């Protein structure tokens, strides 16, 4: 009984988080912290920081990653399932309903113009997210080289309409990071 109540609260908490976060993973982290650490005290601050690091560093949407992780910590596999379902359900329903009317909606002139503005707005949003990420990025010479190379390659891919998946760029960059670490470790070994 106690366990069922706990699982229900877990589901409802993540339903709320899913319904009230706008603008992607980074906005969600703030809401999660308030609900899960400050209000419900399901995780300590340190556990929350670990969770955030893992959710950001593993592939997939940060919101899904955090929901799965927190859900598992609190209610095992069933908890993970309920938390993930909770965080997804509101957006899935809203977007599905919008998509049904979207074409009719877009054929209105006013809407076309609104979306012309919104497209410019979204571009600005992504640009500013990119600038913020760059500002907080650790700027070692290696990181800057990787950044420059990936940036230019991506631009070339889209301007010349090349078919090359950016996934390989990411994996390749990770391997370069690994190689640089190995080289440093070998050099250190030579000196000592």
């Amino acid at each position: 009984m106690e366990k069922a109540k706990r699982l229900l609260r877990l589901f409802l908490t993540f339903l709320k988080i899913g319904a009230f976060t706008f603008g992607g993973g980074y906005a969600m982290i703030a809401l999660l912290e308030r609900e899960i650490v400050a209000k419900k005290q399901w995780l300590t601050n340190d556990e929350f920081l670990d969770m955030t690091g893992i959710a950001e560093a593993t592939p997939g949407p940060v919101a899904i990653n955090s929901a799965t992780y927190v859900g598992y910590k609190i209610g095992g596999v069933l908890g993970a399932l309920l938390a993930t379902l909770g965080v997804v359900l509101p957006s899935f329903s809203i977007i599905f309903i919008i998509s049904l009317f979207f074409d009719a909606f877009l054929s209105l002139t006013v809407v076309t113009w609104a979306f012309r503005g919104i497209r410019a707005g979204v571009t600005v949003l992504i640009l500013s997210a990119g600038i913020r990420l760059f500002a907080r990025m650790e700027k070692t010479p290696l990181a800057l080289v990787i950044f420059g190379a990936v940036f230019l390659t991506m631009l070339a891919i889209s301007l010349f309409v090349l078919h090359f998946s950016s996934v390989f760029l990411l994996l390749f960059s990770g391997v370069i990071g690994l190689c640089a670490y190995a080289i440093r470790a070998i050099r250190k070994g030579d000196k000592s």
Partner: protein
Amino acid sequence: MILSLFLAFLKIGAVSFGGGYGMIAFVQETVLSHGWMTQEEFLNIIAVSESTPGPLAVNMATFVGASQAGFAGALAATLGVILPSFLLLLLIASLIGGLMKFAGVRAFLSGLRPAVVALVLATAFTMILSTAFGLSSLKEAPVFEATDLVLFLLIGGLALFFRLWKKKALSPILLIVISGALGILLSAIG
């Protein structure tokens, strides 16, 4: 169709790091290369996904899926984008102890992070070229319209002004609402 939606979003869910903004680049690549949408339709979808609540990735998956194959498509794409993270995080949460303590893992991530930042900025840059200057690739002639450039400069200027004046970023939802209103306003004037 349903299967290819599921597989495409499974791949997106499995390989995209760093949340929604990092994911936009992958989803864009996927829908354009499958011919599911044009660049313009895709930008509309991002706009809707941004201005509705919930994880950006789930919103995009639901929308792309629904536009291609109705409810089943929406379900397949959403399930696809969620499944890899769900399984991986379940594994990590149960094995938690010290994946981050391995120097190799940290070294790999130190190479990955700047690449993610570059991906986001490159996406922003190609979007500026296509929304503000009508240039979607060097193979096609640009379709330049001064209105779109004016819109971009106005909204960008507003975001910058707010940032410098209030010392914090304008909330995404407010920015979207203002952008839509500005678009309508410009149509009334022009």
